[in-house]
């Protein structure tokens, strides 16, 4: 399959993930969308690495995965704390940044 196939696949998954971020009401749901987007990015990186013969892309993807794990951990910790304080994780109710 040509490179563009992989890239298109990644783009689709990215768009789907974005859709999830934009429409989900639950905070955890939003995080799931983010996961999909990061996944798509990884596919992109590895595809480019393979078709260019460069290792750097794969290493980048590796690190991205690791960082994503850290990010998810911290993010969910925040969600849990919010839940403790406000007893809800619905995104519509989390408008403390309102200007």
């Amino acid at each position, binding site marked *: 399959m040509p490179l563009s196939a992989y890239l298109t696949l990644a783009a689709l998954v990215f768009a789907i993930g974005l859709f999830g971020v934009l429409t989900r009401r639950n905070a955890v749901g939003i995080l799931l969308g983010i996961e999909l987007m990061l996944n798509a990015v990884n596919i992109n990186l590895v595809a480019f690495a393979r*078709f260019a013969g460069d290792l750097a892309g794969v290493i980048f993807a590796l690190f991205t995965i690791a960082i994503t794990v850290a990010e998810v951990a911290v993010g969910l910790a925040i969600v849990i704390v919010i839940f403790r304080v406000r007893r809800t994780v619905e995104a519509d109710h989390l408008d403390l940044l309102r200007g």
Partner: protein
Amino acid sequence: MTAETVAFAGVAVVLLGSSLAVVLTPNLFHAVLYLAVALVSTGVVFLLLDAPFLFGVQLLLYAGGVVTIVVFAIMLTERLVGQTIRSASRYLVNGAVISAAVFVGIVGFLVQAPRVGVRPALAGDLTLALGRALVGPFALVLELLGVLLVIALVGALYFTRSEA
């Protein structure tokens, strides 16, 4: 119709289907499970791209670790224990439009790029090369990553500690 093409098509279908399911299922728990499927299929894509090590990492960290964490978080953040976890969506049309626009934007760049169809020959074992790179040129980055993970761990612990 090579084996690779068939495999790719299959994985693509699974991946796309599970992704859509992740974002569309009302039930959050189901969404997490679908996410697990999506992550595994991504791993298979990595396999198809001659990166078996990454497939392993993906399964371990993503499909294993992240999914577990999310499940725990869901459990901890629902008000009524035992009740079906429901979650609806907002402004579906707006979201769909924007996402579609972003997709179109990206593809727009893709179609203008020159077509690359041929993979270069594999230069040795990827895993070995990765290992060498990680302790070689990318050693510093590796160490920093470790630090980052420690920070994240400590941070998460700190956030969620119970006020004594």
